[in-house]
């Protein structure tokens, strides 16, 4: 906390950056994202509550004049989201600087976060992450045979009121227009949303991008545990290709590459799909 404030002030004072994006506790204790430009102001900087800043950073940089240097007070998930946005050319991260905040153990548990800290930690101490698959809540969602899971998820998603909160809160979703608003894919005016398409399309669009920040489910007014939709796909990417969204800035998703460059373990390929070309490195 203190370290973060000091670092922000210091960066602004020696004009290493033109602004620091963080949370400000203003009048009446209202906390909101804010771009600090005046070193003195940084005394108002806070790091709680959890508030995904990646998209805000994107907008700030987009509207800022060319060459504007921004520092972002970022948690691990913010940093990873920013690097995913950068991969998709949504953020020019050469003008971007991370002031890393490590989350508390409690926060990590709350978020089911397996990596509750950024690459470089400037504030807080590194706590071990939790394995989401060990968490009873997740277990309860993913266990059971397919019929049980089908009924469980159907009834969960049937709550959807189609507020698009999950999409809007997601630090990676940036498309305009969005497929979810196209009636070819999702029927207009039907509530609950054609949940099979609405939520599965959404989930799959993020399959190789989701940094598991949990913003979607925190934004859901009817408590649909959306994060758990992503976990299995994230695990598969890790097992097949050793790929974790947000971790390697310069590595595109293996799903976008051919099988010579990113062969994966090919566990899931039926034998007769195999071909001499698997031999290529």
């Amino acid at each position, binding site marked *: 906390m203190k370290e973060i404030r000091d670092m922000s002030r210091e960066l602004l004072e020696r004009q290493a950056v033109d602004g620091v994006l963080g949370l400000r506790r203003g009048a009446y204790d209202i906390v909101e994202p804010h771009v600090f430009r005046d070193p003195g102001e940084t005394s108002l900087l806070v790091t709680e509550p959890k508030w995904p800043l990646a998209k805000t950073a994107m907008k700030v940089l987009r509207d800022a004049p060319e060459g504007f240097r921004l520092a972002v007070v970022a948690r691990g998930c913010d940093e990873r989201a920013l690097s995913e946005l950068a991969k998709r*050319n*949504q953020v*020019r991260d050469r003008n971007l600087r991370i002031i890393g905040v490590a989350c508390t153990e409690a926060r990590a548990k709350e978020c089911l976060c397996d990596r509750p800290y950024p690459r470089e930690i400037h504030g807080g101490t590194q706590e071990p992450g939790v394995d989401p698959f060990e968490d009873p809540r997740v277990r309860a969602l993913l266990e059971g045979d397919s019929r049980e899971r089908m009924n469980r998820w159907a009834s969960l998603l049937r709550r959807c009121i189609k507020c698009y909160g999950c999409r809007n809160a997601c630090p990676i979703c940036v498309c305009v227009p969005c497929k979810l608003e196209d009636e070819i894919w999702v029927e207009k005016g039907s509530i609950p949303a054609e949940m099979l398409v609405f939520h599965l399309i959404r989930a799959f669009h993020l399959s190789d991008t989701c940094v598991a920040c949990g913003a979607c489910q925190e934004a859901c007014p009817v408590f649909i545990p959306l994060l758990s939709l992503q976990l299995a796909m994230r695990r598969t990417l890790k097992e097949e290709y050793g790929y974790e969204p947000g971790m390697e800035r310069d590595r595109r998703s293996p799903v976008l590459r051919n099988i010579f460059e990113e062969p994966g373990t090919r566990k899931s390929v039926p034998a007769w799909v195999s071909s001499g070309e698997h031999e290529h490195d």
Partner: protein
Amino acid sequence: MTKTVVLLCNCFGEIGGVLPLEEIAGKLRESGDGLSVHVLPSLCMDQDAERMGTLLRDEGADSVVAGGCPSPARRETLRRALGNAGIDPARCAHVDLREGCAWIHRNDPAGAARKAADLLAMGLASLEERGASSDVWTEVRPECLVIGAGPAGLAAASALARRGVTTHLVERSAQAGGMMNLLSRVYPGNEDGKSRIAPGLRELEENPRIVFHPRSRVLSVKGFAGDFKVLVQTADGPLHLRTGAVVVATGAGVFLPAKMYRYGELKQVITLMELERQWIRGIGDRKRFVFIQCVGARCPERPYCSTICCPSSLKNAVRVMEEIPGGEATVLHRDIMTPGAVLERYYRKAMETGVRFVRFREDAPPEVTGSETVEGVRFRDAAGGKAWALPADAVVLATPLVPGMDNRSLKDLLGIELDGHGFFAETYPLHPLETRMDGIFIAGSARWPVSSEQAAAQGEGAAVKALGILGQGRVSALSLSRVPGRKLGHGRVEDGSCTGCGNCVAVCPFLACSLQDTGNGRLVSRVNKMRCKACGNCVSVCPNGTMQIPEHNYRMVGAMIRKAFSE
């Protein structure tokens, strides 16, 4: 107001025998929207063309759904009929009612009938949403770029120049000829290395159509088949070219067997290349030569056979026997690789001249003995296991050709593929000189180790492929793709909605997609229509449906899915 006509082929009872065509036709007519439906005995016989043509004209049709067999080869008459009625072939949807329905569901007529109705409904739906992207053309630049002036490059350049094509021959070193300059003799004949390239060099001298750029390298190649924009760094500064085709003939490198078989330690342990030089400079009084094959080849680090080392060693072994009085040649090998008639004959000749061949096992390689100089070679005969200690004056190591050091950079620069070893790869075995990029061809040891003779043949082959493009005034994207009956045009981007995420760029096999800055730092994807083959990868990874192939857009797919089980 569109007028759609449905033509149902009875196929002489092959389809009507299973499907109640008239009933289906009736249902379609009732379904309203002014459909006119006709059941015809056939759609592919000569007399049908006329009949269908009149029928379509009378109906004033502008789009057609044809239910019949799927075979493109049997659509000629229908295509003629559409022509007669002045209907754009893109406005005709083919529905497979025979192979895909009548023939495989004949024991379930009811199910087959339902399926047929659904398939026709899907066909109709597809027509409503189907767009069209016209084919694109480019004027062909009648010049060619050949990279590398070895046997392959020279052959290609002179072949092209003789056909009147101005050819830019870019060579990294100062002189043409490549490895031929280093060889004393070349197999399978026994002629002098230089003589193999003499005709090419003469052409280079005499034919003004070959523009030779020594001490030069290609910096960038942009554009597409028919019109490549090439930047060459020549000895006297940068040079901009526009060429219709590119031939990559950069050759290969030679593997240096550092520390293997005491190479570098004993000066009588040499490589084949060094032996070639010594033949030129004078072989000295050495008599007993031992050739060791597969030095650094067919091993875990280089898991391939370099093709040329066995014949080269045979050549030199025979020469030892024939030209050195009292000469002795022994070839230690793991397999003698002389496939075909010519080389096998050569192998027999070597045996007849008295060359000794002994096989060793990969796991028991020979051992060079001697302290100051080579004294001999110790090895175990794989056949029978007899142990040998063979006195030798010289040990010659047959080392493989290795991928040229520029291959990686050239790959990125040209957008063509390397194989798992680092040589340039073709697309199909049937098209060994063609790469994934239309208009860029590969020849010689740059694509795989070959003899100078083979390299020259490949050079000529690449030349004829290039002529296939250069010979035409202009080429179209469809004609280049050479996919018969290909229906799709090319990807298309809705500017307004492209987020510039670059997924399409990452996934396109043909480097057809690129990101362009529209100012204010906003990136938008662009499709190079000449390169695009409409495989649709970009469509599937585009997060918000910005990238589409008009002939097969998502609205069309969505509509077809909704109709798939409407019966």
